[in-house]
């Protein structure tokens, strides 16, 4: 799970939305509990589902949201639920958005209730669209960080391409082997992308430290 980072001012929260006839700054409608930022190179501002519901109420969005289940999970669609949410304001203006939940975009918290996750995603997207909020994500968009992401943000195919190199590192038994590995990698490096090399460098340092029996 991405962790909370306290910030003093977040640009995306300075946008204005229409509440009734008045244009109001988003930051003035939210408390610190309503949003947070992810860690990492790209910081994303996340709104909680409860905050989005409160914003919808403030904007007098009709609570009787229309939902439709567009796809049921099966083995051929990665067990995906696709839900459609239609939200309407008192003016009669409506917005339709989709929400999907499958085994790849759910973390451990949503894995047991994918229909509910698809519904929340559809609702949150529809409300954000209705209010014209941009640059923010609903918390329901985030899957937990799965352990496989310990290989940073490499795709399955990227990981597979470097698997033989990883094996050399995992099976190295001496510092001398690591030196030879390092020399060979100078030649091979051009075959790999920067994220692949970044991961391999980190794993190399970890293995070297393990072989030297020092803490790293």
């Amino acid at each position, binding site marked *: 799970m991405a962790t909370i980072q306290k910030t003093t001012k977040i640009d995306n929260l300075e946008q204005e939305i229409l509440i009734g006839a008045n244009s109001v700054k988003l930051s003035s409608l939210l408390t610190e509990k309503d949003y947070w930022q992810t860690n990492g190179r790209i910081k994303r501002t996340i709104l909680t589902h409860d905050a989005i519901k409160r914003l919808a109420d403030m904007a007098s969005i009709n609570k009787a949201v229309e939902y439709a289940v567009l796809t049921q999970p099966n*083995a*051929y669609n*990665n*067990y995906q639920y696709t839900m459609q949410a239609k939200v309407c304001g008192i003016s009669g203006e409506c917005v339709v958005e989709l929400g999907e939940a499958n*085994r*790849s975009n759910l973390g*451990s918290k949503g*894995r*047991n209730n994918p229909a509910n996750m698809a519904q929340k995603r559809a609702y949150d997207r529809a409300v954000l669209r209705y209010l014209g909020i941009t640059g923010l994500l609903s918390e329901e968009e985030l899957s937990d960080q*799965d*352990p*496989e992401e*310990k*290989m*940073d943000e490499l795709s*399955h195919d990227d*990981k*597979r391409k470097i*698997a*033989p190199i*990883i*094996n050399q590192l*995992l*099976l190295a038994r001496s510092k001398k082997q690591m030196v030879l590995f390092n020399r060979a990698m100078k030649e091979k490096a051009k075959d790999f992308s920067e994220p692949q090399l970044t*991961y391999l460098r*980190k*794993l190399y*340092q*970890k293995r070297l430290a393990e072989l030297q029996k020092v803490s*790293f």
Partner: protein
Amino acid sequence: MELTEQQIGLDRIRPSALDLYEKCPRWFYYKYWLGLELEEDRLHMDFGTAIHEAIHAIFLEYDNNFGGGWEYASFSNVLKQFGTFWKPNHVTDLSLENYVNTVAGRASSIRTKQELYQYFKNDAVAMLRSYWNEKERLLIDYNHDLAEFEVAMKVELRNPLEPNEKLPIPMTMRIDAINRTRTKLVDFKTSGSKYNQAETRQKIQGQCYLFGILMETGVLINDFDYVVIRKGLKSEDRIQVVSLNYDMADMAALYQRIKMILVGISNKEFSPPAIGHSPYCGCYQYERALKVK
């Protein structure tokens, strides 16, 4: 949507890989899909191989005495064969470290590799002696007149009920033994614990062997026996036979089971099981090894 080899990302599948996917897709992902290797303790695998070879020798004795069967057979040849495949270098530092950290290891006085090697050797003699003593009974009661050993196969995966329906990758396997009349397959296991009949029947691995024979010959062998040779028992009786019987409906169900696993792999469903995920699962070893800061 039709499955393709490209989507699956593998050019063949083994029964042990299918078994692992059902246990933990994450572990399967690291081991078979990415093909990552960890330094592993091969002690039990090497020991099992040596036991297999020695049992093979028991049946060679049956056939190699000019028709005299086991009347002229010698148990010392069996032990000799075991000794050819069980060497002191099979016990590594890692094997010893793992062993002394087990409950049995802590309770025993074994603290050196030589002692551990000897312990396994003594246990093997007891296991093979038990099999030797039981061989005639196994032959008569279970039709274990074993004539083919280590049968390697590579078969297409076709729906037994719809032969035109085929999965995109073949299955490769190695069957421990087939009896002379080709009416039974046998798989040997060395294990400290007893096998449960109902649980064992569900195992995908044994069914795959029957399926392989069906695919290759068009003939279904219905009977499959696990011969469990028990390790570390005080009792001299170390043999457990789990007899299983499958029919064509089981094979049709197995085909669908394999298909669903391949669909899962092509969908990149590599999350660990939501329930029943063992805290000792092998996937954690990979994650520890691959984790970087």
